[in-house]
């Protein structure tokens, strides 16, 4: 029985893509028979398996960029976008799923590789990109900005998956002139968009929410929106459980209309 190898990469988009790069190189250098004998993981396993080698991979933005380019070129923008979403999910199996989906797609020259849902790797990549995609959509819907006294729009979210880049991308297109900041509390990451410039992510910033000063009209607009939400509801159709299934409680702490 041939030994299996697990490459352990960093839990980030660049980490996973570097992992894919290294997996291909490892296969070539060691003349490994099949990609099936190589796996990617974003975490050390809790118990190491027998006949399995574990190798830690160091993230390299250059190698990751090479992989991005290849994927975009060979699999097309849509599939590339969905693979990125899959890689941003927080499921442990995501790195291996993305890696083996890429292997299948490149082998079959199939830009629609994600449609091959009979394949178990594709199934798990599908699960990952659907979960991350749904969450990104939720934040596109439910993120609420407040206006600060210097005109900056500020929002706080708390995401399960690493979807902040997808959310930033959406708002940068929508509010090109505005300075805005989205803070993902869970990942302690800021997305920053300076007026008419490219957005970027930042970590480790010194930031105290309590020291924020809001603009003069901020409170008024919050109250107006709350009033709007209560006036638009039809009393005869009141249905709180339906509301809750469509707008889960976990989003509400950061949503203006649910603040008392």
């Amino acid at each position, binding site marked *: 029985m041939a030994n299996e190898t697990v490459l352990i990469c960093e839990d980030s988009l660049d980490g996973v893509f570097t992992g894919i790069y290294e997996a291909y190189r490892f296969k070539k250098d060691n003349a490994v028979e099949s990609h099936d004998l190589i796996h990617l993981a974003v975490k050390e396993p809790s118990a190491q398996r027998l006949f399995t080698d574990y190798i830690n991979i160091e993230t390299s933005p250059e190698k990751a960029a090479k992989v991005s380019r290849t994927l975009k070129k060979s699999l097309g923008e849509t599939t590339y976008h969905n693979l990125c979403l899959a890689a941003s999910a927080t499921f442990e199996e995501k790195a291996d799923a993305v890696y083996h989906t890429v292997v299948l797609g490149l082998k079959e020259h199939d830009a*629609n590789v994600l449609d091959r849902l009979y394949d178990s790797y594709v199934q798990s990549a599908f699960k990952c990109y659907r979960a991350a995609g749904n969450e990104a959509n939720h934040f596109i*819907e439910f993120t609420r900005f407040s206006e600060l006294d210097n005109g900056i729009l500020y929002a706080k979210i708390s995401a399960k998956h690493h979807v902040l880049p997808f959310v930033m991308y959406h708002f940068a297109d929508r509010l090109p002139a505005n300075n805005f900041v989205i803070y993902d509390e869970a990942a302690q990451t800021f997305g920053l968009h300076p007026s008419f410039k490219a957005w970027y992510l930042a970590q480790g910033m010194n930031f105290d929410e309590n020291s924020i000063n809001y603009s003069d009209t901020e409170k008024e607009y919050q109250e107006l929106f709350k009033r709007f939400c209560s006036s638009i509801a039809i009393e005869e159709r009141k249905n*709180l459980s339906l509301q809750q299934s469509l707008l889960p409680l976990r989003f509400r702490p950061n949503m203006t209309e649910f603040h008392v």
Partner: protein
Amino acid sequence: MQLLESTSVELYNPQRKSIMEKLSILTDAAKYDVACTSSGVERAGNGRDMGNCKAAGICHSFSSDGRCISLLKILMSNECVYDCKYCANRRSNDIERATFTPDEICELTINFYKRNYIEGLFLSSGIVNNPSYTMELLYVTLYKLRHEYRFRGYIHVKGIPGADAALIRQTGYLADRMSVNLELPTAESLERLAPNKHRKTILTPMRQIQNGIEQGKNELALYKNAPTFVPAGQSTQMIIGATPESDYQIMSVAEGLYDKFGLKRVFYSAYVGINEDKELPAPQTASPLLREHRLYQADWLLRFYRFRVDELLSEKRPNFNILLDPKCDWALRHLEQFPVEINKADYSMLLRVPGVGVKSAQRICKARRSGVLCFDDLKKMGVVLKRALYFITCGGRMMYNTKLDEDYITRNLLSAQEKLPFDKDGITYKQLSLFDCVGQL
């Protein structure tokens, strides 16, 4: 006084209402209009102005009745010279009245939009003075919003029946969606409940908008920078349950509107009793929410599942089955067409299998090109097996040893319970959603 009229200076008026008061009154007055989607147009940002549009539409919140909040849905004014019997704003009602200025609406829209409260504006109005005057108010507001406030988000505006055709046309160039409400399913009902409105005056602007959309497409093909006319299409709505029409009549009207007027959406609004009137159901009559739900499900079948009304209902069976959704109901009456082999059946047949939605049917068609599907795969693709299993085979086999028998399947489907958007404790079918997605039928 002349000087004052020509400037924007406002005279002191003790009855002047605050924005908060106006917003309360004019939101409350608009809430029975059911269309709140922001779908149908994809427009990327231009790198300068505020706003873009997503084809699928975006919901921003859900109100306590479980309906989606996507647009700032308000009336320009709830003053009205008409006297429609079913409407709270009718002339003969003694209620508080208010009117927004165009700038107030623009400020609200922009400030709500940049905070990501809304996807855009839904603007309707009572009839102030006359239809053309009202249409002009709407036009001026949209013009300001697009050109002075440079707003690129979604706008849905009402076309006012009887208004000058040129005004409707101009407004159409500023809006993404326009709708003219049919109000009631038949001309007779309309005459009875809305004496100032006539079927013909409603259908005229509908036809005009349809032609405008067609013409707009041609212009766009000729001149790349031609302004788009109502790019997200036209919709309408009917009130259900205030008048005696059957589901068959209502759905036939809807089908006619889709076929002949090219409508994007028809909305159904379960009547809520507001006014005491001998022509109307008593105000305490429960709103026909389950019926409305069945109509939405059937509407979905017309638009996405390639069904025709005559397949679902007939003169002899004029109303939907209360216990089963229209698709299950149809399948049970056509068992001779089942079971369907998932690995072979064509797309339109897959669409007719209960528990298989549009997305899963598409996924099945794509996936089976390069492999053979089993039941487990179907589940991962989003097929609701507990409904589908009676109607399908995978590789020639049924999932369990089930019988292809109407009573047997009906019993099983009913015990599996359809997921209705009702309150958990409300077994009375009282609560229903107007949420755009009726989900997997």
